[in-house]
């Protein structure tokens, strides 16, 4: 191949790469821009301090405090529940089982498959589960469905950091006469704490933004959920319902709600990045 041809090739691919980068980063700005511009007219203090007023579900007045609180409670509860399962799974397959044992390999595979299941399926599964045990649409049912959705994400993200803990560190703890549990809780978990917190935040971010899994399980309510067995409003569904109306004022409120949800997720991802950076600075190794 001649020099000019190679140079042209280089140019073409460089343009493609730059193009892809610009399109992707640009679409992030475009999404945020659209949401902010379209929602701006409806943005006011009442949006985040009041519950909806002036009509069931689709009120043109008041705010979406019900959905903000509902989403935070729901994602918070689901994240806690997912954590209660993820951490033991991850510690077990990394510290108690040989890392390449059949059980560990199978568990990772299962988590990857669970990760790929669409959230509407978790919603449907949650709904069937509720019928079986006689649970109505409620905060609790939503928490269970969203926890199922978050669990594989959280567990795999944790697994990636726990896997990196050097064997020699576990040996150091074992050599002092520590049991596996002591090593797991006091040494490995502490060593991985920043990664674990990042995994928790990622899962939380994923959970709070999901609409399909809460559609049949959490229900919706104009009131702020005060108990686990009451239905709970969520931001994604608030957006969904408001956008579906024929009234422009209500649609504006949907965009304002989307802006609020995006802001929450942005804060969470910034938090997890900041935490990751802090971890690198105080690196143990």
């Amino acid at each position, binding site marked *: 191949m001649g020099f000019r041809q190679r140079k042209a090739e280089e140019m073409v691919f460089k343009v493609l790469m730059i193009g892809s980068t610009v399109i992707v980063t640009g679409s992030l700005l475009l999404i945020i821009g659209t949401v902010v511009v379209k929602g701006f007219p409806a943005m006011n203090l009442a949006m985040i301090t009041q519950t909806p007023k002036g009509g069931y579900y689709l009120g043109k007045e008041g705010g979406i405090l019900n959905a903000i609180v509902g989403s935070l409670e729901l994602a918070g509860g689901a994240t806690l529940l997912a954590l209660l399962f993820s951490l033991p799974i991850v510690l077990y397959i990394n510290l108690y089982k040989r890392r390449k044992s059949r059980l560990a390999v199978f568990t990772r595979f299962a988590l990857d498959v669970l990760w790929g299941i669409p959230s509407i399926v978790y919603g449907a599964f949650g709904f069937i589960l509720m019928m079986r045990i006689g649970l109505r649409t409620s905060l609790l049912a939503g928490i269970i469905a969203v926890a199922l959705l978050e669990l594989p994400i959280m567990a795999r993200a944790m697994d990636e950091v726990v896997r990196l803990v050097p064997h020699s*560190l576990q040996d*150091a*703890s*074992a*050599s*002092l*006469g*520590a049991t596996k549990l002591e090593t797991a809780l*006091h040494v490995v978990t502490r060593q991985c704490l920043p990664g674990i917190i990042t995994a928790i935040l990622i899962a939380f971010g994923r959970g709070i933004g999901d609409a399909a899994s809460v559609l049949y399980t959490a229900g919706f309510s104009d009131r702020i959920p005060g108990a686990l067995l009451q239905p709970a409003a969520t931001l994604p569904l608030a957006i969904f319902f408001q956008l579906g109306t024929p009234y422009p004022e209500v649609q504006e409120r949907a965009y304002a709600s989307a802006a609020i949800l995006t802001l929450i997720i942005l804060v969470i991802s910034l938090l997890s990045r900041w935490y990751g950076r802090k971890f690198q600075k105080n690196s*143990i190794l």
Partner: protein
Amino acid sequence: MDARTHISIQNLSVSYGRQRVLKDVSVDLPDRKVTAIIGPSGCGKTTLLRTLNRLLDGMDGVKIEGQVLVDGENIYDPKIEVTRIRQKMGLLSQKPQVLPMSIFDNIAYGPRIHGVREKAKLRQIVEQQLAAAGLWDEVKNRLHEPASRLSVGQQQRLCLARGLAVKPEIILGDEPTSALDPQSSRIVEQRLIELKADYTVIVVTHILRQARRIADYIAFLYLGELVEHGPAAEIFANPRDPRMKAYLTGEIS
């Protein structure tokens, strides 16, 4: 040598999968002496050391045959409590492995898991061990900083102090100076020599001069076989096996 036997290794063989890493090793290691396990890389030195506190347990495809008696007790007896065996032996690894916690907590970790709760007692143990490791003056004002901020040499001395805080009887060193600068190496070597007054010290080293400096007793491994063992002075003066001679003259390394 007139010393009492502390560890008796009997017909010990270890394989990783199909590969036999240690072949029928039998040797008695003397109490309160420094034993150096020497030999070319890949000869099974580290494996031998790690069988002593059962760190090979649960590794993929490892098979261990034979016996290791510590004070006459077979540590591979299924009824034995492995944490107690390990507590008896402090381990210094190639790279210092500080625990992800403060300097103070690194030392206090061991005593705490073995049930020491009173703060005053813990403080006393920490100070005593850091002083013995020659670290106290360097770190007394930063006890609650992460141990990872210490220099590598300081970390290795901290690891030694941490091991001693659980009152072991035996100190195992796996090339404990290989990551250290010459100055820190000398300090650690010196500490190991001092420690033989109270402990049995077993050090794996690939540095022949280090073995000459610190060892009272030598075990020479070659391709998984224990070729020669005995008092250091005798072996260095009069190696019997041709492989031992070749190693001492640097023909194999």
